[in-house]
């Protein structure tokens, strides 16, 4: 069974079978409480589906893009859960899950997934429909852009307010079956860390 965890916007957790069929899902929309809720949500989907942690053979991890502090918590949880259960870790770009959900529910043509990147910027990824196996075809991104001036041309724009972990699990299932390339196991920060460099003083030695 596949456990999927994403904390790139709110926190969403889903449990699916090996073919990606949804068994249970739990979400918390609040985008500041990832560290509080992640354990509770994992336990909830296990309980709801009536399975034990030992039944998990793969963990799908939403890799972002997303605000750093929250994003890391889901990835830390996914990686650790996978190690604890000897399960396979399947990193998935979070925007792919948003696109997959939209495309699998009937949308067609090009679309652009847009999420809040704070500091008056958005993160965006462009897709050109589904691959034959049912994964969204990523053609550009993820990138950052200025919110005020960012315009989408020739594609549907989806301003996502959450990442569906159910879709994350479905994409992970495709990866596990060799029908979708796995994303790198690296958080997608899209920004260098903030630092304040301090000036060095010169002193005669």
């Amino acid at each position: 069974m596949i456990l999927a965890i994403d904390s790139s916007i709110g926190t969403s957790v889903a449990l699916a079978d090996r073919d990606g069929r949804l068994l249970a899902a739990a979400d918390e929309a609040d985008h500041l409480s990832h560290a509080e809720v992640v354990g509770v949500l994992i336990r909830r989907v296990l309980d709801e589906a009536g399975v034990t942690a030992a039944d998990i053979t793969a963990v799908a991890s939403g890799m972002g893009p997303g605000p750093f502090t929250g994003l890391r918590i889901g990835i830390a949880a996914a990686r650790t859960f996978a190690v604890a259960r000897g399960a396979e870790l399947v990193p998935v770009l979070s925007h792919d899950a948003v696109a997959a959900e939209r495309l699998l529910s009937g949308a067609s043509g090009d679309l652009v997934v847009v999420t809040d990147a704070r500091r008056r910027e958005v993160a965006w990824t462009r897709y050109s429909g589904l691959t034959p196996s049912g994964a969204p075809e990523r053609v550009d991104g993820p990138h950052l852009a200025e919110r005020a001036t960012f315009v989408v041309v020739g594609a549907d724009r989806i301003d996502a307010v959450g990442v569906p972990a159910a879709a994350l699990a479905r994409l992970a299932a495709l990866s596990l079956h060799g029908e979708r390339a796995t994303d790198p196991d690296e958080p997608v920060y899209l920004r260098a860390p903030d630092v304040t460099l301090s000036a060095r003083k010169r002193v005669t030695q």
Partner: protein
Amino acid sequence: MIADAPLVLGIETSCDETGIGIVRGRRLLSNRIASSMDEHARYGGVVPEVAARAHLEALVPTIEAAVAEAGVELDDLDAVAVTIGPGLAGALMVGVGAAKALAVALGKPLYAVNHLVGHVGADLLTPDADDIEYPTVALLVSGGHTSLLLVRDLVDDVALLGETIDDAAGEAFDKVARVLGLPYPGGPEIDRAALGGDPAAIRFPRGLTLPKDLERHRYDFSFSGLKTAVARWVEKREADGVPVPVADVAASFREAVVDVLVSKAIAACHDTGVPRLLLGGGVVANARLRTVAAERAAAAGIALRIPPLDLCTDNGAMIAVLAAERLRAGHPGSALDAAADSTLPVTAIQVP
């Protein structure tokens, strides 16, 4: 069996060390630490976002290394322990997220415990040491904290006597090192620079030791004035075109820090009638601090305890052993929705 010597894995990510430790009761099985210190060097201090990113990268490899070193299986654990505060919020949350997932994955209780009290608990892991006697005064000094505690019982009765009202002592070392053109981290650099220097060459101020300050801040510390005094002193020499005697400045600065740390700790022992003092935190690596503490404690008839240095710096084993003690004493695990608290008070040994 569990009641006597629970097998606990502890996760520590409150500052710049990713620490994973495994204990069986009070026996240390492994203590693995991945530090992001080198990444902070060019900034002259811990950069929270850099530290948090490094925690995420180091977490799983460090867990795997600790488990391998301990020769146990994760499924054998009786509990998962984690530092829930105090510390850098973003850094703490990486460990908290991981610990919760680990606890649920293993079906084991989560013990979300206090970093500072963990430093006191580190003493229990000292090989072949006698049991810690209570109450004890504890002086915990690092780059992130400078606190004086009265520990009546490690498991359920710890009080704060005082703490720094501005910089931590370790931070003062870093800042003064920068004033002297020395690299980060400042502690070992100041030590090296102080070799052959005269600790009495310059009388730098001892923060919060004047009678008027002692009324309100008897056990509190302040190091920002000291740092400024050193910077002014150096600037004055430079402005006058006189060479700066780096060894004397380093030795005199270090003496001011050590003097005020040890004086206040010994005073706390006197005032509380507790003839026991425990040191903890990364600054304990400073040999001058250990020497002065040993001399003055001996002169005052105070028993001084200093855990091995790799247990004084931030580590996961101290978090694991504190949780093991709580578990042994019958305290249940923490709620799965426990929130990281960057300013967790020492009285909160474990969050419910």
